[in-house]
């Protein structure tokens, strides 16, 4: 063992993943006779699982209606939908490589993502808010000085807070929950003083808490994010079909009915209301259908 050869192999295998699988989704749906919808396990009332491989939610139902229109357009007798659960880490690669044809979760439409994928017209505008205990006396972001602020690992909400922190000299400690339920538990157990997240997720978690009255959504809107249905890039025919179907729902009021069904009425599995009124920013997005990224909202 005198010769000691230490072979350091750092094989950075630069495999050129050719990302675009099939740019013509309509042709793919027609030839395969089925379509794959990307869904989330737990994205509030937008997209969530009922267990048993069943998925439901505001965006899931929009997509089911859109795909029914696509089926009509293609003249298919039936179009079975495969549901593929995705996470915030894999949703973009799975759309790019063709595993998922249409992603109906809670994806923020931003400029970085628009380089990789394309988005349907915005169906939901999310407001990032602060949840705190009702008796904590916290009513504004500036009161978070020296406090512990929970957020969920792998979400962008905390970025806004960080920028705000630097701008105003408010100093707080970030605490990361591994998922939304975990972050809420941090708030509930007192390990964090506030939970900063999308308003619908906060509302959903509060509605499902043991004592919903102990918690309150407080303070100013930290940022506004357009949430949209995601598709492959450079597929104008499919995007047109999806957009037209959604715009039709916006105009004839069926989207407003869906909102009422998912956000203002009791929903399965526990028959609890989320209790989130249609916000002005979402109304504005429906009045003027568009697929502008988040950055455009910030400029206003």
């Amino acid at each position: 063992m005198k010769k000691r050869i230490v072979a350091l192999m750092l094989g950075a295998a630069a495999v050129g993943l050719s990302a675009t699988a099939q740019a013509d989704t309509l042709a793919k749906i027609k030839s395969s006779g089925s379509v794959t919808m990307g869904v989330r396990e737990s994205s509030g009332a937008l997209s969530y699982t009922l267990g048993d491989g069943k998925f439901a939610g505001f965006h899931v139902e929009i997509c089911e209606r859109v795909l029914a229109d696509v089926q009509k357009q293609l003249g298919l007798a039936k179009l079975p939908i495969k549901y593929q659960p995705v996470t915030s880490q894999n949703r973009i690669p799975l759309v790019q490589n063709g595993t998922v044809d249409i992603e109906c979760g809670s994806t923020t439409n931003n400029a970085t993502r628009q380089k990789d994928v394309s988005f349907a017209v915005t169906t939901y505008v999310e407001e990032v808010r602060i949840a705190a205990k009702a008796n904590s006396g916290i009513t504004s972001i500036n009161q978070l000085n020296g406090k512990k602020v929970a957020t969920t690992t792998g979400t962008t909400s905390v970025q806004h807070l960080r920028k705000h922190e630097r701008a105003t000299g408010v100093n707080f400690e970030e605490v990361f929950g591994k998922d939304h339920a975990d972050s809420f538990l941090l708030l509930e157990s007192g390990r964090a003083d506030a939970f900063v997240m999308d308003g619908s997720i906060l509302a959903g978690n509060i509605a499902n808490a043991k004592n919903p009255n102990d918690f309150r959504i407080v303070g100013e809107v930290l940022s506004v994010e357009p949430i949209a249905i995601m598709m492959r890039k450079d597929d104008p025919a499919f995007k047109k079909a999806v957009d037209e179907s959604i715009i039709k729902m916006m105009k004839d009021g069926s989207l407003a009915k869906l909102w009422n069904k998912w956000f203002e009425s009791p929903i399965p599995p526990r028959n609890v209301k989320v209790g989130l009124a249609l916000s002005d920013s979402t109304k504005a997005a429906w009045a003027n259908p568009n697929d502008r990224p988040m950055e455009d909202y910030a400029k206003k």
Partner: protein
Amino acid sequence: MNWDWQVFLQDTGGGQTYLDWMLSAWGWTLSVAFLALLIAFAFGALVGTIRTLPNDRLSARLMIGFGHAWVEIFRNVPLLVQVFIWYHVIPALVPAFKGLPGFVLVVAALGLFTSARIAEQVRAGIQSLPRGQRQAAMAIGMSTVQTYRLVILPMAFRIIIPPLTSESMNIIKNSSVAFAVSVAELTLFALQAQEETSRGIEVYLAVTSLYMVSAFAVNRLMAMVERRVRVPGLIVAGQSGGH
């Protein structure tokens, strides 16, 4: 696929770059792993030794029973569950734990989990020694403590250096569970940064190589220890056959 390594020079919004953040995360990973390893070695050596005590007295039998319970409890409950028990359950039962940061609790959880595994390796090392060694030590009048301190443990620890190397490398990788209790270590950095920058592949490649570099450094360090403490003629590294 286009690489964009400049993503690490972007500002996180808080006045530091993602590179700064990643290096600090690396520090947290190493701190969790190192402190947990200290705990694991201390408790593992103690419990592993206890489990091999001669069971001739009631007090010894009670201690052996304690050793069995220790190993089975910490070995049979999944690591992530143990971390959550330390973080969410114990502070709810014992208020004194409420003030402790997640870092301390995850070091305890990871250290005790690994201590059960090290205890088993220590026991295996001790039991692999010929019975004659213990008997010879007792025959020349050594007490139990002296027998262990001067004869059995110095031999046993040399024998188990290879599995201890694996365990020390494992603890670096296992330290990733700390992300679940909000310790800003590499895995949490990876999950967070890939979402904020949308450059997941670059972020994960960088983080993976840091894990590899750390584990490999531990490997080389332990190999050096193995060479240094070798007793000529007894256990020769790289050759078959022990004592």
